[in-house]
C-alpha cells in the first residue's frame, strides 16, 4: 500500500426533502407509524385456538414418531394433531412445496412440520410443543450442495435450461481478451419483520382465512385445490403485510395446515410461525455457483458470452434460480450460451427472494464485466456503453424501451466517476482504503391480469376497490395517485380498499408486477368513470380490467417485445486497511423503469432495494450445516441484515421514460430492480480499493485479510 494518499472528493449531495410535487405520502403511513394499523396477528382471536408447529429436527427419516401424551395433558391444550388426525390434502402447483405435511410419517426436510399443537394461548401452545417428543426411525444423512450432482429441471418454470445463439467457441477463439471466472452467492433468507401468521375460521362449509400473503387470489385458488373445495367457499383477507420479499408469495404448509386444523377441531385456529420456523417454512434464496466466460476484441466489444449457473434445490421439488437470464439481454454479442442446473439437496424448499434470478445472476455477470474491463484496460462504464445492444441478443426481439445508456452516463456524472483513478489501492483516507465500483442492474418484467372497481359519488368522494395487497411498497398511495390524476380530484378524497378476495381480483404483489398490472386496471376503471362523469352523470361506477398482451407467457412476459428494466449502480466503499472490514459510504443509482407513478414511494422502493443489495453484498449468509442438514442460525443474531449504521448516503434517480408495451400506464416494475447490481458494484469497488477480487458473497473480513499487509501508511 505504497500508493499516494488521496482523499476523494465527495460529490454526492444529500437528496432534498420531498416537496409537495415529489409524490403522495402513504395514506396508511400514520396508522402504521402509530400502531393503529392491524396486521393479521393483531386481529382479535374471538375464540380461536392458537397453534404452534412441532418441526422435524433431522433432514431425512423414514418415520417421525410423535409422543404427545404429556403435551396433550398440559394446561390449555386443545389438541395435538399429527398425521393420524389430518384429512388428505391435494398438492397444487401454486404451493411453495409439493411436499404435503402431516400426511405420513416420513421426514423429507429439516423443519418439516410433524405435529401441530393447539392451545388457548400462544404461550401454552409453545410450552406444550416443548413437551412433545419425536423419535426418528430410519435416519439418513443429508446431502449438501457440494456433494450433490447437477440435475436438469424436468419442468422449467422460468426459461429453458439451455439456450444458445451463435458460435461461442468461434467467438472465444477470435477474442483478444478472455475472462472465465466462477462466482458464488450465499443461501439467504427473506426475514421479514412480521413472521408469517394465518388465522382460519370455518362457518359451515365456508372458510375465512386471515393471512399475511402476497397474493390473496392465489392463496384462495391454492387452498381450494389443497382442501378439495370450491374457491367460492373461501374468502382470504390480508389487511397489511409486514414484509414478504417473496416468502409470502406461494402458499406454504403452515397455511393449509391452519385451515385443515380449524376444520378438524371445529373452531378457529391462528398459527403464528416463530422466527426460527421462518427459516424452513416458506423458502429461501438458494446458494448459486456460476461460471461466466467473456470474450472481447481489442476494443472490448464482446465476441462471446457463456453463463452457467447451478443452484441448490430441495430433494422432492425443483427450483431453478434463473441466474443466467439477464445474460441473454444485457450485452451485444454474436454468440451466447446459457445453461442452468439444479442440485437436489436435503433442505426445505427455496423460493424467489428479492431480487430473484437477476439478483444472484447479475453479481456474476457484472463482476466478470469488471474483470474484463480491468484486463483490457477499459473503463468499466465505457465497456458497458460499447456493448449496449440494439436488439435483445438472445432472441433478436426489439426492446420495448431501454435507456441504459442514459443510466450509465447520468450515474457516472452524479457519482463523479470521471475523477476515478483506475489503479487499485490508489485512494486512501486515514485507516481506510477507498474504492469506487459500478455495475449495471436489470430485471425482467412480469405482469398479470387484474381488475378494479372505481365508484365516484355526488359528494365528491371516490372509492377504489381491488384485491391487491399492501406489502409496504405504498400500493394504496400509488392507486390513489392514479385515480386522482384521471379524475382530477384531490388524492385525499380517494379511499382505497384492498386485501380481500370479495373485491375485484388483482395481481399478486410479487415480481415487481403490482403497479403495472393493478395500476393499469385501476386506470381503466377510473377512465370509464371519468368519461361517464364528463357525459353528465353525477355519480358513476365502473369496473376496469387489464391483462398482458395475447401470447404473453404464464409470467406475463411479452411474446414479441423484450420488456425489461435497467439501471446503473455506483458505490464507494471504505475498507479498513488493517482489519479488513468493509463499509459502504455512498451509492448512486439511476434507473430506466418506465413511467414512475409516485416518485416518493418509488424512491423509497429503490432505496430499500439498494440496502437489500448491500445485505447480499456484505452480510447475508445463511450457513448450511450439511452434517445436521440444517441452516446453522435460525435467528436474526446469527443471520445479519443491514442496520441503519450500515446504510450510506443513497442517491436515487430515474430516467424519464414511458413504456406502453409494458402496461397501460407506461410503467414497469421497480420493487426488485434496486436490489440488483449492488453486490457487484460493491465487489468491484472492493477490488478497486484493495486489489483483492472477491468472487464469493457475502464479502467479509476473512476474504480480505490475506491481501492486506499490516503496514503503516
Amino acid at each position, binding site marked *: 500500500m505504497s500508493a499516494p494518499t488521496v482523499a476523494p472528493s465527495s460529490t454526492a449531495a444529500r437528496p432534498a426533502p420531498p416537496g409537495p410535487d415529489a409524490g403522495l405520502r402513504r395514506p396508511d403511513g400514520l396508522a402504521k407509524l402509530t400502531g393503529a394499523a392491524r396486521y393479521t396477528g393483531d386481529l382479535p382471536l374471538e375464540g380461536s385456538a392458537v397453534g404452534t408447529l412441532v418441526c422435524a*429436527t433431522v433432514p431425512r427419516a423414514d418415520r417421525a414418531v410423535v409422543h404427545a401424551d404429556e403435551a396433550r395433558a398440559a*394446561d390449555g391444550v386443545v389438541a395435538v394433531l399429527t398425521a393420524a388426525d389430518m384429512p388428505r390434502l391435494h398438492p397444487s402447483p401454486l404451493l411453495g412445496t409439493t411436499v404435503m405435511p402431516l400426511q405420513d410419517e416420513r421426514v423429507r426436510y429439516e423443519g418439516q412440520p410433524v405435529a401441530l399443537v393447539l392451545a388457548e394461548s400462544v*404461550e401454552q401452545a*409453545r*410450552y406444550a410443543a*416443548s413437551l412433545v417428543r419425536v423419535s426418528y426411525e430410519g435416519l439418513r444423512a443429508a446431502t449438501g450442495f457440494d456433494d450433490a450432482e447437477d440435475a436438469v429441471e424436468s419442468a422449467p418454470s422460468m426459461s429453458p435450461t439451455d439456450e444458445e445463439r451463435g458460435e461461442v467457441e468461434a467467438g472465444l477463439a477470435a477474442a483478444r481478451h478472455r475472462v472465465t471466472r466462477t462466482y458464488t452467492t450465499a443461501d439467504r433468507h427473506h426475514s421479514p419483520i412480521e413472521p408469517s401468521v394465518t388465522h382460519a375460521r370455518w362457518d359451515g362449509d365456508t372458510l375465512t382465512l386471515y393471512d399475511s400473503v402476497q397474493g390473496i387470489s392465489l392463496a384462495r385458488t391454492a387452498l381450494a385445490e389443497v382442501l378439495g373445495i370450491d374457491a367460492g367457499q373461501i374468502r382470504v383477507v390480508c389487511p397489511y403485510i409486514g414484509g414478504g420479499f417473496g416468502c409470502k408469495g406461494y402458499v406454504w404448509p403452515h397455511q393449509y395446515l391452519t385451515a385443515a386444523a380449524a376444520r378438524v377441531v371445529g373452531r378457529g385456529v391462528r398459527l403464528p410461525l*416463530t422466527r*426460527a*420456523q421462518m427459516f424452513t417454512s416458506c423458502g429461501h434464496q438458494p446458494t448459486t455457483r456460476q461460471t461466466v466466460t467473456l470474450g472481447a476484441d481489442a476494443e472490448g466489444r464482446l465476441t462471446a458470452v457463456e453463463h452457467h449457473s447451478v443452484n441448490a434445490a430441495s430433494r422432492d421439488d425443483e427450483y431453478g434460480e434463473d441466474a443466467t437470464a439477464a445474460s441473454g439481454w444485457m450485452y451485444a454479442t454474436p454468440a451466447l450460451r446459457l445453461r442452468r442446473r439444479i442440485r437436489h439437496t436435503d433442505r426445505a424448499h427455496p423460493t424467489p427472494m428479492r431480487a430473484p434470478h437477476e439478483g444472484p445472476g447479475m453479481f456474476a455477470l457484472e463482476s466478470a464485466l469488471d474483470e474484463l474491463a480491468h484486463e483490457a484496460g477499459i473503463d468499466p462504464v465505457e465497456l458497458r456503453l460499447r456493448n449496449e445492444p440494439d436488439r435483445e441478443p438472445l432472441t433478436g426481439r426489439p426492446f420495448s424501451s431501454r435507456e441504459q445508456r442514459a443510466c450509465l452516463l447520468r450515474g457516472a456524472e452524479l457519482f463523479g466517476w470521471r475523477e476515478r483513478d483506475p489503479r487499485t489501492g490508489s485512494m486512501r483516507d486515514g485507516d481506510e482504503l477507498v474504492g469506487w465500483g459500478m455495475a449495471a442492474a436489470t430485471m425482467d418484467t412480469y405482469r398479470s391480469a387484474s381488475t378494479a372497481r372505481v365508484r365516484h359519488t355526488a359528494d365528491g368522494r371516490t372509492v377504489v376497490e381491488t384485491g391487491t395487497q399492501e406489502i409496504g411498497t405504498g400500493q394504496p398511495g400509488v392507486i390513489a395517485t392514479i385515480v386522482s390524476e384521471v379524475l382530477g380530484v384531490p388524492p385525499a378524497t380517494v379511499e382505497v380498499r384492498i386485501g380481500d378476495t370479495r373485491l375485484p381480483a388483482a395481481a399478486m404483489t410479487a415480481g415487481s408486477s403490482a403497479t403495472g398490472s393493478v395500476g393499469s386496471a385501476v386506470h381503466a376503471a377510473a377512465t370509464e368513470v371519468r368519461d361517464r362523469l364528463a357525459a353528465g352523470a353525477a355519480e358513476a361506477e365502473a369496473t376496469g380490467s387489464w391483462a398482458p398482451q395475447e401470447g404473453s407467457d404464464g409470467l406475463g412476459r411479452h411474446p414479441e417485445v423484450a420488456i425489461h428494466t435497467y439501471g446503473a449502480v455506483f458505490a464507494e466503499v471504505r475498507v479498513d486497511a*488493517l*482489519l*479488513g*472490514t*468493509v*463499509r459502504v459510504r455512498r451509492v448512486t443509482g439511476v434507473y430506466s423503469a418506465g413511467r414512475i407513478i409516485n416518485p416518493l414511494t418509488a424512491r423509497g422502493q429503490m432505496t430499500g432495494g439498494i440496502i437489500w443489495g448491500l445485505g447480499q453484498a*456484505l*452480510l447475508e449468509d445463511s*450457513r448450511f*450445516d450439511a*452434517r*445436521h442438514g440444517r441452516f*446453522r*442460525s*435460525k*435467528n436474526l*443474531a*446469527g443471520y*445479519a441484515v*443491514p*442496520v*441503519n*449504521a*450500515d446504510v450510506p448516503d443513497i442517491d436515487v434517480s430515474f430516467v424519464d421514460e414511458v413504456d406502453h408495451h409494458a402496461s397501460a400506464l407506461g410503467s414497469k416494475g421497480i420493487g426488485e430492480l434496486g436490489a440488483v447490481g449492488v453486490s457487484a458494484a460493491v465487489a468491484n469497488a472492493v477490488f478497486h480499493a484493495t486489489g483483492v477480487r472477491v468472487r464469493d458473497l*457475502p464479502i*467479509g*473480513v*476473512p476474504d480480505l*485479510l*490475506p491481501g492486506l*499487509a*499490516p*503496514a*503503516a501508511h
Partner: protein
Amino acid sequence: MKEFTYTRAADTGSVLAALAERPGVALLAGGTELLNWLKEGIEAPDHLIDIGGLPLYDIEETADGGLRIGALQKMADVARHPDVVRRFPALARSLLLAASPQLRNMATLGGNLQQRTRCPYFRAETGALPCNKRTPGSGCAALAAGAEDTAALFGWTEECVATHPSDMAVALAALDATVVVCGPGGTERRVPADAFHLTPQEAPVQRHTVLRDDELITAVEVPGTAWPSAYVKVRERASYEFALVSAAALVDLADDGTLRAARVALGGVAHKPWVLDGITPLVKGLRPADTAALHAAVGPLFEEARPPAGEGFKADLARRATVRALRDAAAVREGDR
C-alpha cells in the same frame, strides 16, 4: 415457555435467602438475556425474582481513584457517565459498541457479565443438537462443523469451542477490574474480571462463570489508572453485532511517545476475556503508530492460538486488533481524559 412465579425483591438479604433455600430461582434484572433463555428453552426456572428494586445503582469513587459501579447500573448510563468516559475510555467504548440502544437502556452490568455464549448451536431453537453446554455429554456440533467465526482460539477443549460475547468484560479485564459478589449471609467475595468466566479447560462446560448458585453480583470495581485506554471491535455489520474479535488496550507511554508498558485483553477468542500476558517486553520502545513493527512484535503471543478448524483468519485478525487498540489507546489525549 414454562409457567413461573414472579416476585419483586425488597432487599438483597431476601434474594440471597431465596437463592440459598429454593431451587429453580432465576434473577431478573434488565431481562435482555434471561428472556432469550426462557424463550429458547435454555433455562426453565420455576421462580423469577425481579431484583430491579435492590439498591445496587451507586457509582462511587474508590480510595485508589477508581470507580465502584453498582451491578444494576444500565449499560447506557455507565457508557455516558462522565467519569467513565474521561478515565476509562475502553470501558465506555465497549459498552457503546455493544448491542443496540434499546438493549443498552435495559441491560445491566451484572447481567452483561452473565451472558452466555452466542454459539449458534447453544442458541439453536431446539435442544436436539449436540451441545455440551446445553445437554451434557451430547458433543460439540460447533467443533464438528468447523466454523471459525464463532469459535475460540484459546482455552477450548473438544468439549466446547464457544466464546464469551461480552464486550464490557473484555474492557474490564484489560482494566484489571474486580467483580464483587455477595453470598450467603452477605459474605462478600472479590473476583478478578479476567477470572470471572470459566473456560472448558478450567471447569466443566456447564459452569459458565465462578458465580455460585447462591451468589449475586453486587458491583464492579475499576481501579484508578493514569494509562489511556481504547477498545476496538471488529465485526462485519457496522452496529448491533457481536464481535468477530475485539481488543481492549491500556498503554503507558514514555516521554518520547514510545510504549513503556501495555495491557491488552481480547474478546471473541475464548470463553473469557483473554489477557495477553507478557505483552509489555514485546512492545516496549515501539511507536504505537508503527503498525508493521507492532504486528511483528506481538506475534509470539498468538503462537498458542489454535483455531478448531485449523488454519484460519481469526488469529491474525486478533493480532491486528491488538495493534489497532494499542495505537488508539496511545492516541487518547490527556485533555480527552
